[in-house]
């Protein structure tokens, strides 16, 4: 397989991404705008069922002016960052521990399978019973949601480090700790990067769901209350922000980070 000898810089990739997508993006936005506008103008009571793009834009200007939008937006982002950071900080070492110790892995594996099948939404009621409608509740759900994907990915990452690397380190006299530090940890870096991206993706969904059910502010809360308050513009605005934020985060931060790690560790050409 062909391989590039130089890793392209973040700026280069960013530039390339924009160049390729610029034209498509314009067509897409214009197309959606027209279909949306026309549909909105044809239905009865558009303010209730489908406000026009202009109405949504005006509402966003209004909310920006009142300072609500920046406040909701930052609330949600802070929750994502705090919740998923704790989730990753706990999940990565846990995955490593499971990866190196078969006894620990065998003990915890059924438990991991159990919890992975119980989604973040499904644990909501019990968390609300314990912590009420609070920030803690939302954080706990984000943490729960991001913990298992990363732990699982890191576990398989450690397992997939070729045994010959471990043997080589052993014959050079490496201790268990040195094998961990010099072989298993760097060997599972690409998995850690992929798993982090996966976990943050799950966490982002959990933030919105969490705010809808237990929050008092944030984007999730905004779209949930918009439904009751008959503010459909805010519901649509919130949905757009949720999607666009993730695309920006993923394309410009998480994916390049993942690609860089995988390429830099030289594991891409297998």
């Amino acid at each position, binding site marked *: 397989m062909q391989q590039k000898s130089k890793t392209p810089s973040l700026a280069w990739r960013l530039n390339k991404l924009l160049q390729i997508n610029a034209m498509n993006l314009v067509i897409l936005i214009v197309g959606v705008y027209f279909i949306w506008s026309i549909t909105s103008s044809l239905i009865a009571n558009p303010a209730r069922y489908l406000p026009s793009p202009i109405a949504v834009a005006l509402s966003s200007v209004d909310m920006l002016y009142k300072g609500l939008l920046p406040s909701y937006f930052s609330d949600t982002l802070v929750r994502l960052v705090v919740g998923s950071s704790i989730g990753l900080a706990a999940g990565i070492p846990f995955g490593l521990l499971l990866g190196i110790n078969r006894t620990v892995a065998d003990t915890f594996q059924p438990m991991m399978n159990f919890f992975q099948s119980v989604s973040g939404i499904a644990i909501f009621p019990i968390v609300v019973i314990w912590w009420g409608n609070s920030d803690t509740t939302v954080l706990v759900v984000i943490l729960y949601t991001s913990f298992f994907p990363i732990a699982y990915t890191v576990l398989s990452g450690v397992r997939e480090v070729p045994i010959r690397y471990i*043997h*080589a380190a*052993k*014959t*050079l006299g*490496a201790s268990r700790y040195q094998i961990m530090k010099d072989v298993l940890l*760097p060997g599972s870096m690409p998995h850690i990067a992929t798993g982090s991206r996966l976990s943050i993706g799950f966490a982002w969904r959990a933030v919105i769901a969490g705010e809808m059910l237990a929050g008092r502010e944030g984007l999730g809360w905004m779209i949930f209350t918009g439904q009751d308050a008959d503010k459909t513009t805010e519901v649509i605005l919130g949905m757009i922000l949720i999607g666009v934020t993730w695309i920006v985060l993923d394309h410009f931060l998480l994916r390049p980070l993942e690609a860089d790690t995988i390429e830099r560790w*030289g594991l891409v050409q297998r």
Partner: protein
Amino acid sequence: MNAMTPKLIVEGLSHHYPDEYTGVSVHALEDINLEIFEGELVSVVGPSGCGKSTLLNILAGLLPYSVGTASVDGNIIEGPGPDRGVVFQEHAILPWRTVAKNIGHGLEIRNFPQVEREARVRDFINLVGLTGFEDKYPHELSGGMKQRCQVARTLCADPVIMLMDEPFAAVDAQTRITLQEELSRIAIATKKTILFITHSVDEAAFLADRCFVFSARPGRIKKIVDINIPREERIWANMNSNAEFIRTRDEILRLVREEVSIATEE
């Protein structure tokens, strides 16, 4: 230390292991006795499945053994250790470390002072001909260069004995003969004691001072062939006219082929 004191002693070593799929006990090695002296290059050759790689793994400490003893410098082998460096068949250099970092890894593990370590690493980079590739990553190297890097990493850690497990089996024929000549030159330069496992008769005869021919499974030492060719004369261009090389190679070939036919008849 007395030159006649063996560096490596193996006495009455036998090995059985359960087959991965059937669970039936496989008899891999039977009553192996051998001694390797300081500065000697010994090759082990035999039909596939004769247990020669098993022997190397036992000596490397990567495989536990139950019957017999094996010791290096008088220390019984109980696990892997830096006194026995291993050059693996497959590329076992770490892909996330540069050439220099890979070669210095053994010294790093032993907390060698950085200045001293870097000087030593430079010496071994030069010795194996990787000068100019210090900062390259393994995926930027050819197969032959990866193996040179492995040899340098092993030697840089200064083991008592270097164990080599078919190290040139995966490289192309041209690179292979170059690597063989270079190993011979490195053996002169470092006076390192080397155990070299191979299935190539030519390679075994070209490199070794003594060649241990293994029988088909269970592996036993069928014969020890002495190869009296001064190390300085070991260049492939000379070998076709070297009577000692031709004689020993043919003898080893005959011994191995007997075993191969026994193995196929079974």
